[in-house]
């Protein structure tokens, strides 16, 4: 069950095919060649750099380096959450809430999974910790970004309804309740769909990778189930925190809807 070593010339063959695809789009005047090649180049460069970092990290295997890497990943994910929102909360709140939500959920679920479920020695062993956290952050980021975007955008569109409910004496939680439910739903739906379709419609990427790398399918399946659950937990709790904190921020201490706290969309 040795992994078949992949050499650079084999990758070059695949790269050549991508270039051929780009060439086809040029011939057919579809205008995708530039972005296609640019993205392909980014993949090569980014993954190579990450590979170097991981090699160094695995060699060192010190807690503080793992923690530094983890926080670096968290901050980049936080920035990404902020960038994906049309009407974001101003004053650093979009970044703050997104990052906090991901920190609370991804980090605690990842640490719990490492210490209690998988149990490598030491628990922060980077071969387990970094890929697990990476997958968690990637999924949680999508959920949090979708939920916050839906929350702020719907609140903006339905401001009159929210205010009318406030006028009738409802608490802010009640006045924004439907919108919170919708935001929660759009944050969690991709994860729920992925769980429902796993193995039937698609073979999950991590499992495929493990099988390609020589693991027996039964073990790959167990890891995939574990990963699916941790991803759901991370996304779920992250979305929960983001929706709770984000919707609270839409109101002030007198329960007034303060939409001037949302930035105008950039076109």
């Amino acid at each position, binding site marked *: 069950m040795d992994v078949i070593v992949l050499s650079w010339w084999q990758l070059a063959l695949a790269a050549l095919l991508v270039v051929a695809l780009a060439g086809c789009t040029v011939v057919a005047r579809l205008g995708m060649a530039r972005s296609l090649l640019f993205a392909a180049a980014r993949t090569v460069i980014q993954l190579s750099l990450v590979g170097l970092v991981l090699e160094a990290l695995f060699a060192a295997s010190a807690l503080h380096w793992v923690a530094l890497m983890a926080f670096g990943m968290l901050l980049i994910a936080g920035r990404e959450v902020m960038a994906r929102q049309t009407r974001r909360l101003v004053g650093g709140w979009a970044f703050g809430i997104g990052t906090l939500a991901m920190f609370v959920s991804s980090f605690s679920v990842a640490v719990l999974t490492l210490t209690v479920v998988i149990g490598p020695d030491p628990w922060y062993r980077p071969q387990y910790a970094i890929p697990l956290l990476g997958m968690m952050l990637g999924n949680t980021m999508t959920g949090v970004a979708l939920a916050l975007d839906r929350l702020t955008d719907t609140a903006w569109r339905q401001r*009159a*309804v929210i205010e*009318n409910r406030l006028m*009738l004496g409802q608490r802010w939680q009640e006045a924004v309740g439907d919108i919170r439910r919708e935001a929660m739903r759009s944050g969690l739906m991709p994860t729920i769909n992925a769980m429902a379709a796993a193995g039937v419609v698609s073979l999950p990427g991590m499992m495929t990778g493990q099988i390609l790398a020589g693991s027996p399918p039964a073990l790959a399946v167990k890891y995939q189930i574990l990963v699916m659950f941790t991803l759901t937990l991370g996304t779920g709790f992250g979305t929960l925190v983001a929706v709770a904190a984000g919707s609270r921020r839409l109101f002030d201490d007198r329960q*007034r809807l303060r939409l001037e706290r949302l930035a105008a969309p950039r076109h």
Partner: protein
Amino acid sequence: MCPHSLSLERFAVGELSNVDLNLAPGEILCLSGASGSGKSRLLRALADLEPHAGEAWLGERAQSMIPAHEWRAQVMLVPAESHWWADHVGDHLPTVAPADLEMLGFTPDVLDWQVARLSSGERQRLALLRAVARGPRALLLDEPTANLDGVTIRRVEAWLVERIRARGWPTLWVAHDTGQIARVADRHWCLRDGQLVEEEEMSAWT
């Protein structure tokens, strides 16, 4: 449940500043003024939906002393245009007296109607009903009859005035129509250039 008065003390919002006003229980004060003069904004601030300066009192209780949602449940603002969140009328009106429905020209089956199919006049009457059914202590009405026809206007006015007097709600009523002001108002104030001016001669308007 004895009726309370509604008072404003050095109340200020937007262009408007230093408004002092006292409304006795059951008293109707009509407010008029050009559009954009800040009438709606004053009502919104009174319902504590907008940041403002000064203080408002309902009886002995100050606005800033009680939670905002309790204040709004007691000092009930009915906006010029109403908004509905559920599909059916009944979802917005948990408790409603059949007598009120009848006086506004509805039968009890209105509760099963779909909100999306209401006309603007029906919406406006039901919005008033929705507010009154929640048992407020004071009313802030923003052009409550703007979308109604002549006969219905009289009917809604009569119903509102009867309820306001019977329950002792101090009421701020934004109105444009001088005829309506003459019919319902105990006092009439006008908003001009950021100043609230009392119109002394009510008869000059009719």
